[in-house]
Every structure is written in structure tokens, then in C-alpha cells.
């Protein structure tokens, strides 16, 4: 049976996550269909950390350039490029049939929207993020463990936290977190992940320190709490259950 993984954002995290997940499918012996979702084009400044792209990809849609490279290196995977943004109008179509979603986008609004849509539709979500020298990974298993809104109530107002452009991103840390996202997604696809639910992993690139904390489910969580079904979240674009 073919399983479907959706990668939101084919950037610093999405590139290594896609590469490693394709290889993991071959090694672990599962049939994989991989949706690549991103409406951005490759910029020269991306090349240092978005490892699927080369100089001659500059100006191309990321999902097209990444899809070509992955199709050559991993012909056993069905690659489906989707040059669209994940938002209210596209989420239902993008998540249809998904077995796992990997979120490596660079927008708080998209991240909370992905969390809400995945929780509402019961699709496991691998949330990965990096900023400066810090990385985070959270396994969101709907109805099993906590979600992103159990940890943070919502996205910050624009400008209140430093962006990637302001704080930079440690290039090798993208590889570390992206590979960890692929490993977690592979475990989810193989059904070997219950103890990972709600575990928040953090990396400090400067010290090499890694920590793991269990984020408890919040009974009052507007997304995954007891009375959360069909709740819409204006702060995340209000994406309802697909």
C-alpha cells in the first residue's frame, strides 16, 4: 500500500526532510507518494541551506526544481509538486489522503493553520522549526498527544519575534532538524511512534545540547481539547476540518 507524505515548505528543512524520507522509504521498504507544497521560487540566497537546489535552479519554482532532483535520486518515490500556498482555500485538497504532514514552513500563521487542519482531520503532523542556533521538533498525533496549541496558544503578532532574515539560520542545523523530521515521519508511517506523541525536542546549535520535554495535552486547547471539534481559528486563517 502506498503511503502519502506531505511536505509543507521545501526550504531549509523541507529539502533534507524530503531527501531522507525518500531514502528511508527504500531502506524500510514502504511505498511512498510525496507531495511537495511551496509557491516560492529558488533565490540565490537559498542555496547555502536548501540543499536540493543548484545555481541553475535560481528563478525556478522550488517544487519543480526539488521534484526533478528527487525523481532522479529516488525513482522509487512518486513525487507530486504542488506550487501553491497552504491556506484555507487549499488545505482540504492538499491534505486529502495524507498519512503524515511535515511542516517546515517559515510562517507562524501557516504553522498554526497546519496544526489545526491536521488535528481536525486526524492526520499526524511533524512540526520542525529553526531560528538562529535553535531548532525544535514536535510530534503531533491527533487524539493521542498534545498539539502545537497545547504548547503555544497562538502565533505572535507580526514583528514581535525575530524572523529568519533578522536572526539568520545555522545551516547545518537545518540538516539536523530536517533529518529528524524525516526519521519521525518514517516512524509514523510504520506505526511505531506512540511514545513520541507530544514530545518536544530542542537543539542548541552553539552547545550541541539536545533536550526533550513532554508537552501535556491541554484539556482546554481550542484545537485538540475536549470541545474543540470544528472550531475555527481566525489567527491561523480559520481552516476548518477538511
Amino acid at each position, binding site marked *: 500500500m502506498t503511503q502519502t507524505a506531505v511536505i509543507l515548505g521545501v526550504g531549509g528543512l523541507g529539502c533534507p526532510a524530503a531527501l531522507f524520507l525518500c531514502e528511508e522509504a527504500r531502506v524500510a521498504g514502504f511505498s511512498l507518494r510525496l507531495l511537495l507544497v511551496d509557491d516560492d521560487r529558488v533565490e540565490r540566497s537559498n542555496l547555502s541551506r536548501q540543499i536540493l537546489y543548484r545555481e541553475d535552479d535560481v528563478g525556478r519554482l522550488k517544487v519543480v526544481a526539488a521534484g526533478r532532483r528527487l525523481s532522479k535520486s529516488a525513482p522509487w518515490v512518486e513525487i507530486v509538486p504542488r506550487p501553491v500556498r497552504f491556506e484555507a482555500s487549499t488545505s482540504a485538497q492538499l491534505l486529502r489522503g495524507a498519512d503524515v504532514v511535515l511542516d517546515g514552513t517559515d510562517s507562524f500563521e501557516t504553522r498554526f493553520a497546519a496544526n489545526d487542519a491536521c488535528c481536525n482531520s486526524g492526520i499526524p503532523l511533524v512540526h520542525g522549526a529553526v531560528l538562529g542556533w535553535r531548532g525544535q521538533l514536535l510530534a503531533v498525533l491527533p487524539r493521542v498527544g498534545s498539539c502545537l496549541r497545547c504548547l503555544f*496558544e497562538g502565533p505572535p503578532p507580526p514583528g514581535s519575534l525575530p524572523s529568519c532574515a533578522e536572526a539568520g539560520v545555522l545551516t547545518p542545523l537545518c540538516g539536523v532538524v530536517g533529518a529528524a523530521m524525516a526519521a519521525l515521519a518514517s516512524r509514523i508511517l510504520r506505526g511505531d511512534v506512540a511514545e513520541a506523541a507530544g514530545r518536544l525536542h530542542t537543539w542548541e546549535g552553539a552547545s550541541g545540547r539536545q533536550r526533550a520535554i513532554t508537552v501535556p495535552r491541554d484539556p482546554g486547547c481550542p484545537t485538540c481539547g475536549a470541545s474543540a471539534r470544528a472550531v475555527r481559528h481566525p489567527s491561523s486563517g480559520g481552516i476548518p476540518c477538511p
Partner: protein
Amino acid sequence: MPVTVKIPAPLRPLTQGQAEVSLENAPTVKAAVEELSRRYPGLRERLLDDKGALRRYVNIFRNDEDIRHGKMLDTSLGAEDKLTIVPAIAGG
């Protein structure tokens, strides 16, 4: 023994680059935040909103416990407790 506060990288410009800060007189998380804010101007605004509540995109753990699921800022602190500040990040 003091309480140790782990400062995440995005907030270290406010703590003169320090990754860990030791506090001697902090019986609660609120007292710890106030002491941090006294030492490092600007930190309070990054952690608390205008009403003095923890901002919704920041979390604090006492050791491995999420204070949002306990007494929030009134969570008590004891000797050798470790506080970890976890801000939301969205880079990818």
C-alpha cells in the same frame, strides 16, 4: 541553591549573551521573571503581555513541567529547579 534559568538564543541579546542565569531569591516563576526583568531591561516585554500574563507564543517549563498546566506564573520554585524558556519559532 539557586534556580537556574535557561535563556533561549532569540532572547540572549537581552541577557548580554548569557545562556543560563542563576537566581537566588525566586520562590515563584513570577518572581524569577521579575528578577530577570530587573537585571535585563526589555526581557519582561518579551515574556509577559500588558496585563502581566505569559505571552501566548512563549512557554516556560519548570524542569520538565509545563507551567501552563499548573499554576502558571504562581508555580513555586525550589532549590536547584531549572526554568526553561521556550519561544515559538517558525524558521524553515
